[in-house]
């Protein structure tokens, strides 16, 4: 691009300095706040005070932070689900649906199996069942992708709508197994108490947070050190190299998608074990599945970073909701605008991590355009 006598060019970096890895996300959050600030000004809310409230409600107050951690718990799961598949270039964007199915599976286990189990293993059974249901929801897209090369993006996305309608049917459309029989009001049937975790004190944080954080650290180690992680990196980099080395691509593709689905399903089951205790259509409004994709992208598919980005996002959501309920209500949409802006700036920042901007002065020499040359 040439502006006046100055030429602005992007040049690929041969090495990225380490400080940029930190600077880019920090700057993207700051720039996103500026953009959000413009929206706040336009809607007549003082940006600084609103941000102060947001920070306080989302992160810096005790209950704000514990609410945020509670919401981050399933978000870490869907973030890991996206990261696990995306790092192998398998774009499972059906975390939303897999999360709902995890909720359904968890609730089923919590109602049907829990009475026959000792309390000690009831919770793990609920969580594992939820994970299995999440995996089952991605089984068909996984097999289609592995066997026929069908785009998993389309199939997993469409199944989200099926899952959504399934939940609505269970609670609103039928008097079936998952609906509370004791009241005409449409709500889910509670699972057995023995299959639930209590919250930490009076907070909204549950022990499941520790499980999802532990899983994230484990996966961080697993993909780097295990043969399975190694094979997926080779396959992601070059499928033809994986074939050359005799790796089983059908197995790799299928298993990665199943693990991804089970992680999202686990997130749904954690919601059942923790705050909800039932199939809760209220979860549908939060969009934890899609947010997981954003969380994974911001973390650049690094599982430990997923913990941090999930907490960042959950805080925006919690703080945003609190603003809505304050004396000077700020629409929740502003939090969504902020989320979107953070993502856009972070992805845009990647450009500057990989390239540097070179500004040179154009020196006009007496070069001539020759019009007619025979």
């Amino acid at each position, binding site marked *: 691009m040439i502006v006046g006598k100055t030429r602005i060019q992007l*040049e*690929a*970096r*041969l090495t990225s300095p380490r400080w940029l890895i930190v600077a880019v996300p920090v700057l993207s959050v700051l720039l996103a706040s500026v953009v959000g600030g413009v929206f706040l000004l336009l809607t007549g809310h003082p940006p600084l005070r609103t941000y102060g409230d947001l920070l306080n409600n989302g992160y810096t107050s005790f209950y704000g932070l514990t609410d945020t951690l509670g919401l981050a718990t399933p978000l870490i799961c869907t973030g890991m689900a996206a990261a696990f598949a995306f790092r192998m270039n398998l774009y499972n964007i059906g975390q939303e649906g897999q999360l709902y199915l995890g909720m359904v599976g968890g609730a089923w286990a919590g109602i049907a199996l829990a009475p026959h189990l000792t309390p000690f293993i009831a919770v793990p059974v609920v969580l594992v069942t939820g994970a299995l249901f999440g995996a089952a929801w991605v089984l068909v897209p996984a097999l289609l992708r592995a066997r026929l090369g069908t785009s998993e993006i389309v199939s997993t996305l469409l199944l989200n709508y099926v899952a959504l309608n399934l939940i609505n049917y269970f609670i609103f459309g039928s008097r079936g197994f998952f609906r509370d029989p004791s009241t005409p009001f449409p709500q889910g049937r509670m699972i057995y108490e023995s299959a639930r975790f209590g919250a930490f004190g009076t907070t909204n944080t549950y022990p499941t947070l520790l499980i999802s954080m532990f899983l994230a650290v484990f996966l961080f180690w697993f993909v780097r*050190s*295990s*043969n399975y992680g*190694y094979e997926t*990196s*080779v396959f992601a*980099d*070059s499928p*033809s*190299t*994986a*074939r*050359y*080395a*005799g790796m089983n691509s059908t197995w790799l593709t299928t298993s990665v998608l199943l693990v991804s689905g089970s992680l999202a399903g686990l997130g749904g089951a954690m919601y059942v074990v923790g705050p909800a205790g039932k199939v809760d259509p209220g979860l549908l409004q939060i969009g934890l599945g899609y947010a997981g994709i954003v969380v994974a992208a911001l973390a650049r598919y690094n599982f430990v970073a997923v913990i941090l980005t999930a907490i960042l996002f959950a805080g925006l959501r919690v703080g945003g909701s609190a603003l809505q309920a304050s004396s000077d209500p700020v629409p929740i949409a502003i939090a969504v605008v902020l989320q979107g802006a953070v993502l856009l700036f972070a992805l845009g920042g990647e450009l500057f991590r990989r390239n540097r901007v070179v500004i040179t002065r154009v020196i006009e020499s007496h*070069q*001539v*355009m*020759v019009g007619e*040359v025979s």
Partner: protein
Amino acid sequence: MNASSEATQGSHRENGATPFALSARNVTKKFPGVVANKQVNFDVARGEVHTLLGENGAGKSTLASILSGLYRPDEGTVLRNGIEIRLTSPRSGLSHGIAMVHQHFRLVDRFTVAENVVLGSKGLTFVLQPKDIEAKVAEVCEKFGLPLDPRAVVGELSAGQRQRVEIIKALYHGAEVLLLDEPTALLAPPEVVKLFETVRAMTSAGKSVVFVSHKLGEVVDISDRITVMRDGKVTGSVKRGGANASRLAELMVGREITLAPRRGKSDSGEVLLSVSQVHLSHDQIKILSDVNIKVRGGEILGIAGVSGNGQRDLAEVISGLRQPNKGAVTVCGVPTSGLGARATRKAGLAYVPEDRLGTGLAPSLSMVDNLLLTRERGFLVDRKSALTEAEGFIEKLEIKTPGPLTSIRKLSGGNAQKVLLARELFSGDMSRVLVVCSPTRGLDVGAVEAVHTLLDEARKNGKAILLISEDLDEVMTLADRVIVLYRGKIVLEARGVSEDFEAVGRAMAGLSA
């Protein structure tokens, strides 16, 4: 103009009476991390064939791209008939009569020859008039002796014919100076001869041709002048008759190199690889028919042939990646057909595929991770021993890399190939059979020598090597025996050194010997 054999430093020379058709003056072009051209001077006279010779990465393609308008120089100027011009795009180059034919053709497969030729020209009628266009294209074909049917669909043409389409396209658009980038890379020997005839026809019509090449052998015949580049600089310029292959090679690599053939000592080793009566077809199209091969320990069997005559499929069948419809493959006495790649490797086969970065190596992963690729791995990967191994290879094979943890993509082609060969030759269980495909394609002369030495050493150590290569020179330099594959069949089996080079060349082109 005397034909002295002295190389003149650069070719910076002003010619008062007749200006050069095209010149570069003090051209410098930088890319991130490299200076591709440093103060380069280059002149092409009217009616001459001027070859730009150099190793890969010497900067010759960059120079050609600057001369044709694809790149703009950071410093320096381009002159056309002695007048400074400023090229902003290949189209502006064409408006000055300069056209470049790229190594990888830029044609639309589904269009006819005529449609491809007129593509991009101004002043076409809204509704195309195919008959008029075809007539005009046929006219150009005839004028320069380029036999081609204007109505043929490009997708069905051979590489040589496609190249002709590119040349016709340039001529149709009024090109006076043609830059041909590695024009012989995809051609069989008889097609090269035809190309040279075309080039001669063009120069006698007063047009200038710039031949960009790294193949020493063939450019000596065709060129009126050869300018050699190394590391972005012009190292010398030699006129016709003054060129001597070893002197040019020295200018290219900056030191003396040997191009002498290498042979194994005896053929008394035991048969380590045998392929018997292998047939392979895909969608009812025969790819391999009745292929029989035996390779003994301590010998290199060369398979020559133009790309696409079943060589790659044969390599995949032998390495267990594909299953033949009929026939058997035996590696070190173990029948391996149908067992898959891992089992075949276990039986003692190492395989260096043609596509080294996309198949043999995982380009984004490190050298350490790439060494792990063909190893037996447990639940956890053992990077420590691979790291030690990588450091050993870097030292022993003089692999130029920032370190064993740098991704392979950042290595030059030659160094990447060294990593691949090191893994396949020395890593793990020390396989006894090696299948190598086009091991030196795209490598510079120095790297070619290193690869050939590695293969020669492996032969001396008693390995059975099957060398599949399109580069006939390479096969003739290294192999103890040569087989020519044409349309999936063995059409010629040549024993020993003395076999006629020309017979192999003819067999490659499908002409009966």
